[in-house]
């Protein structure tokens, strides 16, 4: 898979973020990291199981809105 090259500005900005995060205790990082927003379809069933990851990926492609980013297409 081809990964996009980060720009110099992005790298500088991310480096600042990494250093700021490193100064926070893990408990605080958790508070900032785990958020709750409703994801249509994905959050609408209490339980799902898949025999294979390929089956799960195919289900995501077929059922989830593309803007959630779970598909492989652009």
């Amino acid at each position, binding site marked *: 898979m081809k990964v996009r090259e980060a720009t110099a500005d992005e790298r500088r900005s*991310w480096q600042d973020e*990494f250093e700021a*995060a490193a100064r926070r205790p893990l408990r605080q990082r*958790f508070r900032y990291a785990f958020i709750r927003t409703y994801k249509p379809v994905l959050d609408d069933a209490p339980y799902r199981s898949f025999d294979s990851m390929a089956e799960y990926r195919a289900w995501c492609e077929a059922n989830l809105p593309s803007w959630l980013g779970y598909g492989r*297409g652009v």
Partner: protein
Amino acid sequence: MAAAFEYAQAEEIRDVFARHGVRYLFLGNSGAILLGYPDTTQDADVFAEKTPENGRALVGALRELGFSVTEDRASEIERGKDFVQLKDGPFDLDLVFAPDGIERFEDAWQRRVEVEGFPVCHLDDIIASKAAANRVKDRETLPRLLAFREHWQRTR
């Protein structure tokens, strides 16, 4: 929909899974966050070893944590589905038994990183898993995660 995952719940996973002898690793964004990666996510991803014994231990641990694990669900977890999403417990939890990009649990276990007692996949495994999954959201995340790997390797 459960409330946001909290540090205390991660501690509960760690402690209850340890009591039940569950072999697992934090993976995905939740694993990267444990390693220090500043990002946002919704649920915890756990890479569990796919054996009947571990499945049974996992079912016991999940029930103790407050997840609704019916007999049918328990049977699926013990039999070894590759991916299970639990969204009716105290927090949302994804159980991954065969993540993309990681060949064997034992290899990932040997490479694991311990953070405050949390067993976490090595960052290289988290990156390999996202690269192999190759979803739109993984492709968006990877440049920043790769930059974090440089920072992490320099500072750990």
